[in-house]
């Protein structure tokens, strides 16, 4: 079968520059003696920008290690330190990269002024930073404890959950002031929040364009494209990048062009991709299949992916702390099972998806725990074919290419038959 190539947006090429500016800003912060912080995904990075603290996201650095084919080496170094084969590969990559003191282009990351983690996605995040804070000789570490929303959580519970997070958020501001001397400036906080909202909004609009048949963009634009949302929410520069991506995608839509020449199968991919083998996703294109939605990359568009509340710009500007607290309670990536099923069904319908691939990522148990029930319920209630593939986000040793390829080939056959009716 001939290789096919989906077309990446020209604008996405600007991603490299945008991320380059992020890393330059980090270096500049160190030169200027400005405070820096590590943060885990799910944390309100906007508050760091609002308090003039330069954020660094070790998960982002870990993906760089993987993309540059260094993650396995770093993971094995961490394992030599006594950390198990079964633990999160982002954590181990980060540990190995710090041990080796490699530069940012290999996934290196400097010692920060303080660390900020949360258990909104996983308890692992807090353990990870505890390990690193201690190994650095004692870096201050603030944890935002976010209550778990489960399938039978009531509205009443959500109210006091939110209050709990909000109280911690105020405490966090004091913590930051104590360790940096920087005070919160609410005007700046509003400005940063407004930028973050706009960034989310454009990302949402890009996703809306993916509803079109053929889809104007593929994962070549979104897997990497999500990083500004993750690392720079609150800055202006990524907004301009996303707007360029949007305009170019819209031009394709208007011209009836898709990212893939002969789009036949529209897929959804749930989970973190295997960063060390991103090219593998192009393999789907041989079957005229394209991924048109990833809950993981859309999750970071947090103002538009909340199942419990509406988040208007007005509400955000009125009280950014209240909004940021409420937003922390949920994340598309780790929704409770009932919410997940509802959102999957709606997404499949709206984005006209033929099949779903669920990545049983052994490094991320919170995301994968309910996959089997998710698959079964989607099949029973909405007749949506699902495929579960087993692998890992950052550890190439856990990726069995032959097995995954065989599974995908069979899955495409199922979709083909299903389409023929």
């Amino acid at each position, binding site marked *: 079968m001939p290789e096919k190539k989906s077309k990446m947006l020209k604008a996405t090429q600007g991603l490299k520059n945008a991320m380059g500016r992020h890393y330059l800003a980090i270096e500049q912060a160190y030169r200027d003696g400005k405070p820096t912080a590590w943060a885990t995904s799910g944390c309100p990075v906007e508050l760091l920008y609002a308090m003039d603290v330069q954020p660094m996201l070790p998960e982002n650095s870990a993906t760089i290690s993987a993309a540059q084919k260094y993650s396995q080496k770093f993971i094995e170094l961490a394992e030599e330190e006594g950390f198990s084969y*079964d633990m999160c590969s982002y954590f181990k990559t980060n540990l190995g990269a710090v041990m080796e003191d490699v530069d940012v282009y290999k996934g290196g990351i400097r010692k920060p002024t303080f660390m900020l983690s949360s258990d909104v996605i996983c308890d692992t995040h807090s353990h990870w930073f505890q390990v690193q804070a201690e190994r650095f000789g004692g870096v201050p570490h603030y944890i935002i404890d976010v209550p778990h929303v489960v399938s039978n959580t009531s509205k009443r519970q959500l109210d*006091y959950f939110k209050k709990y997070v909000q109280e911690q958020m105020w405490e966090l501001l004091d913590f930051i002031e104590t360790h940096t001397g920087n005070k919160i400036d609410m005007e700046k906080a509003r400005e940063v929040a407004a930028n973050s909202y706009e960034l989310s909004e454009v990302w949402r609009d890009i996703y809306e364009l993916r509803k079109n048949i053929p889809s104007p963009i593929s994962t070549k634009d979104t897997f990497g494209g999500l990083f500004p949302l993750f690392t720079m929410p609150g800055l202006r520069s990524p907004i301009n990048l996303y707007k360029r991506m949007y305009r170019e995608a819209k031009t394709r839509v208007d011209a009836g062009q898709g990212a893939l020449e002969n789009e036949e199968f529209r897929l959804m991919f749930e989970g973190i991709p295997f960063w060390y083998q991103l090219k593998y996703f192009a393999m789907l294109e041989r079957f005229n299949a394209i991924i048109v939605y990833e809950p993981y990359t859309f999750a970071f568009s947090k103002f538009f992916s909340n199942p419990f509340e509406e988040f208007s710009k007005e509400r955000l500007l009125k009280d950014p702390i209240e909004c940021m607290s409420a937003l922390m309670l949920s994340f598309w990536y780790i929704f409770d099972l009932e919410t997940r099923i509802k959102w999957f069904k709606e997404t499949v319908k709206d984005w006209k998806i033929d099949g779903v691939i669920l990545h049983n990522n052994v490094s991320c148990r919170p995301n994968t*725990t309910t996959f*089997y029930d998710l698959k079964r319920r989607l099949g029973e209630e909405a007749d949506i074919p699902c495929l579960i593939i087993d692998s890992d986000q950052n550890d190439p040793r856990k990726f069995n290419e032959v097995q995954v390829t065989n599974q995908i080939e069979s899955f495409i056959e199922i979709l083909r038959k299903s389409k023929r009716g």
Partner: protein
Amino acid sequence: MVKIAYFDADVVSPEEIFMAAGFTPFRLLGNPAIEHDKVNEHVPPTHCVWAKNILEQAIRGLNPEIKGVVTSHGCDCTNREFDIWVESVEIDFLFYLNVPLKRDKIALNFFLNDLKELVYQIEDRFKIKIQPEKIKEAIKLNNQIRKLLKEISEYRTKMILKGSEFHELVKLSQTNDKKKVLDILKKKLMELKNKTRFTEKKMKRILLTGSIIDDTEFLIFLEDKGFQVVADDLCIGSRYFWNTIEEDKDPIVAIAEYHLSKPLYSTKMPSYDRFEFLKFLAEKYEVDGIMNIAMKFCEPMLYDHPYMNKKFKELKIPYIFIEMSYNREQYKQLSTRFEAFAEMI
């Protein structure tokens, strides 16, 4: 006897609230002898084997005396599996208790709210009223049990009570009517006061820590290898009885404060603080070595192990870390490692 069961990867379930509601608290225990036929249809293979074992039993059907199950915040696996319980387990009442990750005043206030919510939901579901006086009575009764267990535990260190027998007593305390438990423990204490050492041979004095260890056969296995568990910081162990609950204040507040001040577990932060209690136990009971047993895929333990290893090395206390599957065949397979450790110490 009607029961409320708790699925707890720690030991933070408010038994006194269940008792005040007229239920016997019942800790769900694993059964390493069963196959995971049902649960494998729900949970991927790379998830905590102990948690899967409990869920397997629940899907097959819990004892009809169990009218509800409360799951407490544990690790990432147990937390997320709650939704599968809701989906797959036939039970009238299921509550997820968000025991906070931290232990400060903000966390305490939140925990109070969640405990009150639990009270509200039990009252609503079972059409009963939980009286504060009843909770206070339960606290007093459980405090007596805790004190007795603490006193009895000292007989482990004197080599009068085997570690495995004590483990059975703690399990019994977590799964039976508390008045009956009180009688049993009182009798046991009397009996122990008149007993002599069970062995004259030199057994290695061990501090046992790690994931949930609910299979007493494992402790018997250790005894066969020449180890006596003289102390532990386990959930089915010291962490269940080390502290008592204050009896003269608002009972819900007292319960919340109790759970957020007892010796810390790896599922809570900062989990490295656990080391201080382990160090205290190791020194108080003059142990020959420390065993840290992690169930396969038990991430909190896996994160803490290298730090514990480093700290015990600094103290020059022999330390062994074992990752173990939840089945008895594993014990035999690990024999050599335990024997080597025995020789080392």
